């Protein structure tokens, strides 16, 4: 296991940031937490900054689809397009919309490699993160 890998976490709810951080720490990963997608994008682009091995973002933050916007911004930038991305959401079905991906195509449309309902199940989350980082 590549224990030294860095993972970016984006969520406006501190509890989820911290519990995901605790899970990933238990798995031997280092994390950086951001309460806004904008901050995470800035950190990605900062010159000389350590490149994360994985991105985990909440879906509904400042806007209903802030997570999608973030994922799209990452994917459309050739510098970060290859970084695996996980979307987590407590409101996967909100306001009559169901965001849960049903197929790999759905996931691809979301610009994501994995999707989890919140709270993330610790073991499954960790093993999926391991697969994605490889």
């Amino acid at each position, binding site marked *: 296991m590549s224990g030294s890998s860095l993972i970016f976490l984006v969520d406006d709810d501190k509890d989820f940031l911290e519990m995901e951080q605790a899970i990933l720490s238990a798995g031997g990963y280092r994390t950086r937490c951001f309460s806004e997608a904008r901050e995470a994008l800035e950190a990605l682009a900062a010159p000389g900054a350590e490149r994360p091995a994985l991105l985990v973002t909440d879906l509904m933050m400042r806007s209903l689809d802030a997570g999608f916007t973030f994922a799209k911004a990452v994917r459309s930038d050739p510098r970060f397009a290859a970084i695996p991305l996980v979307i987590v959401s407590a409101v996967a079905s909100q306001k009559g919309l169901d965001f849960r991906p049903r197929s790999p195509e759905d996931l691809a449309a979301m610009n994501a490699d994995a999707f989890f309902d919140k*709270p993330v199940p*610790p073991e499954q989350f960790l093993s999926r993160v391991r697969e994605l980082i490889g």
Partner: protein
Amino acid sequence: MTAHAARILVVDDELGVREGCRKILASEGYDVVTAGDGKAGLEQFIERGPFDALLVDLQMPRMSGLELMQEIRARNPDIVPIIITAHATLDTAVEGTRQGAYSYIPKPFTPDELLLAIKNGLEKRALSLEARRLREERERRLLEVASERSRSNTIIAAMTDGILVINLEKLVVLRNHAAARILPDCADRPLPFPLEEIQSSDVREIVSVVIDSPGGFMILSRQIPLGASTFMVNVSPIIEPGGETSGAVAVFSDVTELAKLDTAKSMFVSLVAHEVKSPLAATEGWLNLVLSGMLKADPQEERRMLERAQLRVKTLRGLVNELINLSAIQTGKFTLTRAPVAVVEAVSRAVEASRESAGPRAIRIELEDAGAGARVLADREALSMIFGNLVENAVKYSRDGAAVHVRIEQDARHVSVSVQDHGIGISAEDCGKIFDEFYRARTEETAAIPGTGLGLSLVKRLTELHEGTVGVHSELGAGSTFTVRLPLADEAP
């Protein structure tokens, strides 16, 4: 014939003719009055009328028979005048009938001739009276129908609901003012016009379905947006007394406000679901983590996580309480236990409770008590909710590092508690609505601030239960001041 005995006026200057007539007619049951000349005849007619028939001699002193006939017919056109004359010539007969005489009897005449003339005259009169009665009756009915129709038209025109009547050929044959207003695209179209010319396909479709339905007993209702409003459109067939459908009537009722309320309720449910789901998911997440055994049995770490879960459950309980209280107030089941309470105590508790959320964001809460120990007759818990909500809101909508001022003031009969923040402020438009249930001002800045839109409506209702008022002064970008005014304990009823 007529139910009463027919009354006959006999006017002749010859006493013999007069009395002869009277005897003959009276013997047949007629009611007879006599007069000796035209003038006396007119007097009798006026004093003792009405009469059904007039027997009149043509040549009389003072007033001739023709003159008398004219006078009398002017007063009673239905009377049957019969001329009795000794100078029966064609000329006088023609003149007499021109003047309105029914017939004339040449003197001398036999009793039978007299009776026959009278009988015929009265029968003719009865017939013409009956004909006139029927004609008048028909005219009266026509008038009634016309006024009934115009009354219905007036009512239909005045209705606030829009009404269209569409015939089987799908032509719009009636449209009231409200319908013209609701469907402005065909408002100027003269009637009848094809249903197809109505722009709304929903309206065209619902009307067509009813008209085309076999048997014609289908009634359809559909909520249809038209312009900026929403209408409940009810279409029902018009069924003739014989059972045949002759078209359909469409009634448009404005349900815009109801639809808005419906949307507000759905949004509220969705909001509450979100507000409930986040703390529940966070709590579950912490518990999962502790139970997963990932923490390698670090009791300190586990305890920290359980405390985080506890905090989220606490806020969840607060939300549920808010919902229960609001529902209790709305249904009149909220009971107040009122006792004298020092306002400064209640306000201080609220301020202390808010320090927990204000602290991490470096927001200072300053309490200024100029209330000189003001006391109100209040429910302690309700008072905590009122001040707690206002102070917590002030913190919530402040910028990090800002100050919140809480000030207690007292005048002769009231105590005022004002809570001032220097936060994002509220637009004038939103100021009018923020005390409504479920309403939240929506801006870029409030999007990330959690809330159910229940707090301020709870504050307003609780304050009003204490005979108090709550108001707001705000400027967008500069901050808001909420002021609660309550009667002092001695003044409270």
